[in-house]
């Protein structure tokens, strides 16, 4: 009897070895990034950045065997199909290893495709078992295939880590909005918020682009900021109305977008010195708390009031003015509040007049005013938002002045 029980246990263990779906790691090749471009005849060109197992395994194992020493750590390959997942399946025809999307952490979509509408592609990506809601969505200025072919991360082995770390770094400048697939997908089907996604591009102009001016330090779209040629830049966002891209915001505008939605962790601003011409004051910005947003839907007119709470810190005063003193600090605080208020105002105006799209998600706050979903739908937020009256109040207080408590004038 004991032997029979043992045999049954062994038999069950044999059956439970991953059942029919087991795949050894050396049978799989992982796709790290998936790019989508408009293709011929209603097709798309799907580009896959695949981790090169020869090189990655060599690096992980300390280069044992010396295989893949001179090879690239990634392989870029493209296929044409009506849907991204269909292209993914086609790619398997050319590969010795079965491709897997389990480790794909970025979807890069060309601007051209985004402007035509992404609904059908998002549906496919949302439905497939291997794709993840935590993957980042980037909109590429130009063609995704070109970007993915030419982007070679200098500091990372794989672009997936590059994208992931760049996204985390966005917290310190807030000149873009990093969006995960699930959030983006939800927003494309939402009445109360319009989706946005990071803009990405390679810098083709090198240092020859237009330099920044005081007050407009990050006023660029991805790829336009003067820097070393060939670097990939994540700056600004693409604005959508439902699933169609309708415009772009520069880095500075994105900073104000992040302020208004309470998603700015840190940023910076360089403004003309209010007390001395041709000099500038640099401040780092921090959101003290989430903005207070109130939406009144009573009566005919929609009224939205937003109160921002910003805490800047002085980081550079080129004029040498003693802004640490109470009176002068008030001057700089008023000037900063005015500039931030104006920046936010202009952005709200653009969203109402140009995009006609509630990218701030004010609609979410408006839903409180309705008892049922039907009442909310009947209100027709999308239409009402473009005619809404929006008040923005900036509460700004410089809490810290860095490692200097007083600026002594330069003796000339």
């Amino acid at each position, binding site marked *: 009897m004991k032997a029979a029980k043992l045999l049954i246990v062994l038999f069950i263990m044999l059956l439970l070895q991953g059942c029919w*779906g087991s795949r050894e790691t050396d049978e799989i090749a992982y796709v790290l990034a998936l790019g989508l471009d408009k293709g011929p005849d209603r097709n798309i060109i799907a580009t896959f950045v695949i981790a090169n197992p020869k090189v990655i395994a060599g690096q992980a194992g300390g280069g044992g065997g010396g295989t893949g020493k001179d090879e690239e750590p990634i392989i870029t390959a493209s296929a044409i199909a009506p849907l991204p997942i269909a292209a993914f399946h086609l790619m398997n025809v050319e590969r010795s290893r079965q491709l897997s999307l389990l480790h794909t952490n970025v979807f890069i979509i060309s601007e051209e495709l985004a402007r035509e509408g992404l609904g059908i592609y998002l549906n496919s990506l949302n439905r497939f078992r291997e794709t993840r809601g*935590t993957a980042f969505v980037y909109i590429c200025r130009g063609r995704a295939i070109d970007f993915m072919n030419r982007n070679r991360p200098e500091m990372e082995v794989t672009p997936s880590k590059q994208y992931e770390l760049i996204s985390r770094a966005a917290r310190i400048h807030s000149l873009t909005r990093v969006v995960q697939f*699930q959030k983006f997908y939800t927003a494309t*089907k939402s009445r109360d918020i319009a989706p946005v996604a990071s803009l990405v591009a390679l810098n083709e102009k090198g240092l020859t682009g237009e330099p920044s001016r005081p007050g407009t330090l990050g006023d660029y779209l991805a790829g336009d900021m003067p820097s070393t040629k060939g670097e990939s830049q994540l700056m600004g966002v693409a604005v959508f109305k439902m699933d169609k891209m309708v415009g772009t915001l520069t880095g500075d505008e994105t900073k104000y977008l992040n302020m208004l939605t309470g998603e700015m962790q840190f940023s910076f601003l360089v403004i003309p010195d209010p007390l001395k011409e041709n000099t500038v004051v640099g401040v780092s910005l921090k959101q003290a708390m989430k903005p207070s947003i109130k939406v009144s839907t009573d009566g005919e007119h929609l009224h939205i009031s937003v109160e921002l709470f910003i805490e800047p810190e002085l980081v550079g005063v080129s004029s040498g003015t003693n802004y640490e003193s109470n009176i002068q600090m008030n001057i700089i605080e008023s000037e900063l509040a005015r500039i931030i208020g104006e920046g936010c105002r202009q952005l709200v105006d653009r969203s109402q007049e140009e995009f006609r799209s509630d990218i701030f998600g004010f609609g*979410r706050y408006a839903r*409180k005013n309705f*008892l*049922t*979903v039907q009442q909310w739908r009947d209100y027709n937020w999308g239409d009402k938002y473009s005619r809404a009256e929006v008040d923005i109040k900036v509460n700004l207080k410089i809490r810290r002045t860095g490692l200097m408590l007083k600026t002594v004038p330069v003796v000339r």
Partner: protein
Amino acid sequence: MDGKSKFGLAEAVVLLTVSNMARIFISFPRTLVEMSGPAAWISSLTGMGLSILQVYLFYMILKPNPGQNIVDIANKSLGNIAGTIFNTIFAFFFLAVAALFTRTFSEALIISALPATPISFLMSGFIMLAVLGSYIGLEAMARSARLTYPFVLSGIVLLLLGLSPLWDLQQVFPILGNGPVNVFIAGGFISGAVTEILLAAVIVKSFHGPEMFFKITSRAMLMGFFYLTMLLLVMVTTLSWNTGQEDTLPFYTLARLVYLGRFFQRVESIFIIIWGFIGIIKVTLTLYASAITLAGTFRLQDHRPLLWPLALIIFTGSILPHDMPAAVRLEALLIREVTWLPTVAMPVVILLVSRLRKRGGPNESG
């Protein structure tokens, strides 16, 4: 036979709670969100109130008959023919629940982790374990549920808290969702239709009397509905009610969204193990209850000879729906239109008849 194995309050509460929680891992939360919109969690609270009323209804039936379960009471109150019909309906209800859960849990495993595995293999696995569990008996099930519960609980807490960066509390508005009728009546009745109270009334002999039945079942309902309400709140605030109703397996979708930095993500594999365990408990318990019910109905001394034929019925029943959406629709239909019959309407009849017989009893004898 049942009643031989007795276990404590904690084991019994956990056993029923785990069985009740099984529905949160499959498409049920989606059905509720589709019905009630952002107010699905309110429907769950309404369902909790209704389930406590059901517990009280069964307590009223069991209280005057200590030492007897609902099967014995139905036989005694309704007579042989009506009692047998009632009990057979109870048994088939358990079988239907077991068949649908076997199918939906197997489908869930295919969708999430084992796409190449034939469904018949997975269903056979569930059913074989259910037969084994039912054969060993209730005590073993209760104790293994108790033993595993801390891991299940910590897994769920981990998931809910791991999603906290994604919560958007504005998503719970409009507060009355798809309207009071959908939220309180339709949604309330869907979420309040539970198998575990009837099931507890079948296995009540292991509970040390009707007073314990009330304590155990009401606590299990409070805990089960607490988890359901929390999950619905997290689902609505994370996925939004609009796209949340698209998800086949909302719990799995949520698990896949946990992303706390580069080193804490992809935790769904933990939840697949929890699912498997909870699915097995649910199927085992319902198979066991149907065997006990039939054994009681036909006055058999041992329920075990019934296990294999009943397992075969469950397997056949579970393979009947053509596809996953059909199984989910059938499950929704069972919950919406059938569950209230064996869990409320028939117990009410048993209660009324037993009360009437009691009143008539002294007159007949006198």
